[in-house]
């Protein structure tokens, strides 16, 4: 468990942060997922099953969080300290990516976010969302085609 957590911690934080755009909340969600894993005593399971369990739990928690919280907004025009400015740049980057993906249906944007932003494979995405890899690939292509159309129109 410890090894799986160590190997995936940064990826989990990145996964959650670019989903909800707030570091503290993202880290709380990741910590809760790991606590849940430890409490449920899956210590005899190893490897990919643990990793997928963590990503699935974090994904579900992010969805819950977004249902009960306001969507991200830009920090433009807000005065910030140096330390906060770094965090604000991160925040704005997440907001920028999510503003692009918000043009798509959730079922397509979540797969593109996992594939492009979080660099997960279709097999991993399929395991997280309990769908087949083929379905994940199809939704990814549908979404990318729509973004391509939008991009072409704008450019």
């Amino acid at each position: 468990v410890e090894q799986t957590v160590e190997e995936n911690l940064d990826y989990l934080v990145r996964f959650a942060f670019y989903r909800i755009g707030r570091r503290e909340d993202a880290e709380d969600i990741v910590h809760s997922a790991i606590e849940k894993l430890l409490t449920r005593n899956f210590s005899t399971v190893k490897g990919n099953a643990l990793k997928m369990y963590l990503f699935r739990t974090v994904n579900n928690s992010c969805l819950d969080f977004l249902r009960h919280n306001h969507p991200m907004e830009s920090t433009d025009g807000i005065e910030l300290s140096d330390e906060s400015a770094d965090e604000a740049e991160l925040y704005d980057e997440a907001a920028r990516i999510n503003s692009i993906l918000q043009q798509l249906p959730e079922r397509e944007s979540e797969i593109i976010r996992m594939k492009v932003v979080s660099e997960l494979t279709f097999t991993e995405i399929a395991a997280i969302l309990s769908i087949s890899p083929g379905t994940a690939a199809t939704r990814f292509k549908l979404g990318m085609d729509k973004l391509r159309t939008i991009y072409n129109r704008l450019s």
Partner: protein
Amino acid sequence: MKEHDDNHTYREIYDLLTPRREIKASDGLRRRISTSIADHALRRRRASGLRALAMASVAAAAAIAILLVPGDMSASELLSSALDAMRNERSVEIKIDVRTSPCDNFAYIDAKHPFVPHTLQAIHNDTTIIWRADKGARLACGDGTSCRTWLDGSLGWNISGLSGQKVLDYLAIFLSPYNIIESELNNALQADGSGYEVKRKDDEITLTVHAKAHGDFSNPYMLNKSIAESDNIRRYSFDAKTRILKRASVSIIMPDGSETVILNMRSLSFKPLNASKLCEVPSDIPFIDENGAEKTYGFAGCQPAELAKAVLCAFRDWDTEIIYKVIEPAEAEVFYHNKYKGSRVVSIGEAFSSGLNLNIKFVPYRIVLSNGKIQNGNLAIYLHEDGGWQVTGGL
């Protein structure tokens, strides 16, 4: 030109969506997690100390055994304890019988075929598995750094990816009893719609998993062609005392509702294996290297039926300008040249999808071979992410 434009546009979208700022876990989070892990480890040690005391009277406690099966024991609990029992076994040999063709890929099943004996062997190190799978005419092995599969006396492939999953598909879980249990536990945790039932009878505990076919079967062509693509029942028997796996079988539900056993485990033994023997590959056949850079297949933007027609027509004069763009040259020459050169296309049907992989299109065809024999089939062509097509089966 279109392919170039598509790739260019996708590249732009990838660039747009790729984060320009990296984020890592903060030191604060790392400290919180370290504390959590330490707390739980302490609690676990205390619990296992009590358990060891309770089990001191059990002779031959080679594995973690629970003396009684609680009436409300869940599948996950059973599997967790079975994992405990087998996690220390390092080498294993499993013999299974599968209804399939001896030379077809390891995922393929067919209820109409007789049973084909398979031998799966594995040595588990701390981080890698050295393994070998043999189904008669097709073999595969992996040494933790590379993976190979080959047709006996014919042609082989170096496969990218380190695990057997890519080559063995469902059978990868049989590389060790640990993987069988882990796989089922993973399914249980995912609550993937499967039904689980645990029963105890005499000195055996049985776990039965009822699973639905995964995939789109609006066209049923791929239904029951692999275990995942079939309504199936997986049965496992464990020794009630040691929780060691004793038997395993998989049945599929046929269209008429009857049940056909498709896989049966004959034996399982934990015995020392020779790692270098497991990794032996034949030196007298060519191996196609699939480990290199992503291959580029041709005909991006082409419709499936158009592509099928182009390829099948190219067989007549063996036009390698076309054939090699969609079939690996060595495969084309070894498997298809003699049979299909000189063949003539009679008809091409409408493309369809079926089963788990919607990137594979099937195109019905009828051709006349050079010996005058008529062949009907469904050409399987795979759509790569870059838009290129690859012929993957149906010939």
